[in-house]
């Protein structure tokens, strides 16, 4: 996805200035889902496997080959490279790998370290010999191969594994020691982190264009939360790369002669989850009406750009397990009105429908990390008003939004997305064990829609790929059939690049890979 390298090939040296939207919050790999965390972890750590961002195929990295997996996918055996060292000089050993995956798979409550959402059914790790490790699972865990390729499984030196939640927090970045192409040199709390290339890095994944040390000498990751500042600095040449170029700025960036890279995130699409257990949403006709009453085309074309394709399923087209849901989200205002009429919702004096004294009033969160969530909701609420539904945007800062997000009385419609290039991603989004955006659990913690939960578990535990794809398709069909979700678009990670930047790539969910980047001139 990088421009042609002017013939001369990569140039070594230089300091890249990379603008980030927010400061990182933790470098504990299972927390790397947060983009600013992930951008760092991805460049600081190596993983057992590597996933090709284009094909989503796995390939060896620290492991010498793809793992041996037993038939029901409850045992994974990896053969490890023996030439890898961490940046503090300690060797990457089998014991160390087991210690890593044990921590990520089991978490550590005492140190406030969570379990990685990528690893399911983990039981234990085993050092088979000095360059072989094996992992055992209590139930099939077919996603584990992909899991150890993600940033959530970035391998850390023994010293770093001792850290507690605080130790992974801001201010301590230099203590987080990986075996990736970059090392943290210095950190200015909340404003800048300087990464330097690791001179002896020589274990890049086979498909990487740059097999040796990173071309760049250093990377300055500078926090610039204000959009206009980030874009202004980028277009005025004060920085080389800016993450999160919002659609409204794309034109400005392009007009300044810069390149825009929209990296697909290969996961669950940006969209709405209807929390069907709420009294107002229990009737499927209401949910269907909401879907029919929203003109996604208008949302996408007026607020977003070409980099944001209209969603055709709850999963992105490039996600594993994608199954098109043709015609599921058609805009048809008449049908929407008819459905609501049928469900007994009558239009009141102020244009909002009521039934048995209840107003059809729903609250949706603001997806703070997602692009232009406010504008999307504003437009959608305008559209829904046309069919007599009142949609309110939940007011609150990050903490308030987070606190309300799991409370069905406060938020009935949840706006979100999740990126992960594995079949499991759909489970991450909807399972009651994970993000549970539909809030499909009753008070006792049992699933309300048992069928959905069972299908999700199947995705995560069906040992063979085809069966997983089928299970994923079944989930998507079920979501469509029950009118649980309305996906808007396939959300990319959008970067703006100065023309002098070459070789910029992202990993499978859009985190930057800086090892191959070089600066012209």
């Amino acid at each position, binding site marked *: 996805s990088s421009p042609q390298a002017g013939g001369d090939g990569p140039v070594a040296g230089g300091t890249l200035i990379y603008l980030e939207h927010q400061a990182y919050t933790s470098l504990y790999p299972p927390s790397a889902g947060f983009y600013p965390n992930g951008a760092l972890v991805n460049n600081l750590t190596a993983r057992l496997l590597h996933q090709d961002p284009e094909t989503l195929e796995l390939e060896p990295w620290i492991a010498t080959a793809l793992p041996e997996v037993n038939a029901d996918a409850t045992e994974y055996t990896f053969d490890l490279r023996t030439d890898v060292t961490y940046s503090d000089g300690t060797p990457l050993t089998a014991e160390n790998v087991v210690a890593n995956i044990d921590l990520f798979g089991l978490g550590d409550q005492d140190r406030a370290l969570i379990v990685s959402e990528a690893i399911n059914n983990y039981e234990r790790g085993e050092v088979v010999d000095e360059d072989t490790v094996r992992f055992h699972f209590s139930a099939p865990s077919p996603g584990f191969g992909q899991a150890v390729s993600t940033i959530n499984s970035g391998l850390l030196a023994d010293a770093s594994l001792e850290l507690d939640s605080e130790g992974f927090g801001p201010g301590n970045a230099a203590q987080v020691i990986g075996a990736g192409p970059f090392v943290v040199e210095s950190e200015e709390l909340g404003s800048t982190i300087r990464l330097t290339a690791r001179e002896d890095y020589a274990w890049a994944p086979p498909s990487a264009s740059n097999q040796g040390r990173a071309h760049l000498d250093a990377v300055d990751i500078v926090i610039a939360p*204000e*959009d*206009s500042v980030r*874009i*202004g600095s980028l*277009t005025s040449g004060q920085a080389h790369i800016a993450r999160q170029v*919002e659609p*409204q*700025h794309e*034109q*400005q960036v392009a007009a300044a002669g810069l390149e825009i890279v929209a990296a697909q995130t290969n996961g669950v699409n940006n969209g709405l989850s209807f929390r069907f257990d709420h009294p107002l949403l229990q009737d499927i006709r209401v949910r269907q009406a909401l879907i029919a009453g929203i003109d996604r085309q*208008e949302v996408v*074309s*007026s*607020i977003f750009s070409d980099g944001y394709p209209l969603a055709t399923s709850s999963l992105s087209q490039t996600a594993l397990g994608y199954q098109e849901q043709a015609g599921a989200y058609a805009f048809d205002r008449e049908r929407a009105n008819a459905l609501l009429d049928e469900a007994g919702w009558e239009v009141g004096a102020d244009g909002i429908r009521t039934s048995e004294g209840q107003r059809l009033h729903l609250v949706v969160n603001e997806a703070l990390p997602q692009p232009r969530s*406010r*504008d999307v*909701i*504003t*437009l959608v*609420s*305008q559209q829904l008003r046309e069919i007599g539904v009142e949609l*309110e*945007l939940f*007011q*609150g*800062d990050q*903490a*308030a939004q987070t606190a309300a997000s799991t409370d069905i009385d406060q938020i009935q419609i949840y706006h979100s997305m999740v990126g992960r290039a594995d079949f499991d991603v759909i489970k991450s989004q909807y399972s009651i064990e994970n993000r549970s955006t539909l809030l499909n659990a009753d008070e006792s913690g049992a699933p309300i829609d048992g069928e959905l939960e069972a299908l999700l578990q199947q995705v995560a535990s069906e040992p063979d790929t085809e069966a997983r794809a089928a299970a994923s398709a079944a989930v998507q069909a079920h979501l469509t059939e029950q009118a649980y979700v309305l996906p808007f678009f396939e959300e990319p990670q959008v970067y703006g690049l100065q023309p002098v930047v070459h070789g910029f790539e992202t990993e499978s969910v859009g985190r930057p890979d800086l090892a191959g980047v070089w600066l012209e001139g």
Partner: protein
Amino acid sequence: MSATIASLLPKRAERSGRPNPRATLVLAIAVLAIALAWAVVPWLFTAQDPIAGVALDALQAPSAEHPFGTDATGRDLLARVIFGAGNSLAGAAIAVLVGLVVGTAIGVLAGSTGGLVEEALMRVVDVLLAIPGLLLSLSVIVLLGFGVTNAAIAVGVTSIAVFARLARSQVVRVRRSDYVEAAFGSGGSFLAVLRRHVLPNSLGAVLALAALQFGSAILQISTLGFLGYGAPPPTPEWGLLIAESRDYVATAWWLTTLPGLVVAAVVLSANRVAAAVRGGTA
């Protein structure tokens, strides 16, 4: 410096073309009146919908059809400014009222009772001053919940201390005056003197401050909007209009500039009126 023989030197010749100071006051009152009219009967001033936009018309520069241009979702900006007057002025009014009522009550109580009560109250005021205003208002919003009214109250809370201080100093000044002494001397009770003399003569400066605070309240509310604690969209609100459209400073100048000018005009007018109030009561 030889040319700057200014106000301190005698004026031998009357300088002509001196604008009448009343003219600016009239202008200021006119601006406030228009803003008030927008707040009360916005539909008389625009036929456009402030909430619903035509998505295809997004980000149009000012034109005959859209004198202030359109915003990112194709809404007419002028309509949003006009309809926003209601929210903004009401917000500012609430903010000022909170500060005025609570602050003045504290200040008058402290100033008129004196002694231990005064000491205690003024220390409370010091504490209020010692907590940074923005932090205080953010906490109040989080505490009360988000929304236009709560943001306004939060801004008002931060001005309580200032009002209290001013009210107290005014009351103390008036209390020392000969006419208050004379009123006591003619048999007036504490409350009667407070009502007849102390309050009317103290509140002039306080009201001037209120007019001044009115302008700054609009700005503070907009700062809260900037930090993400303002009115919920799609509510048109001036501060929010500026705050939300800051991403377009480089590409669509009108989005921040025109509402900004409206706010500046209103704030300036409020200041001018405040000066007149002060002048009239000093």
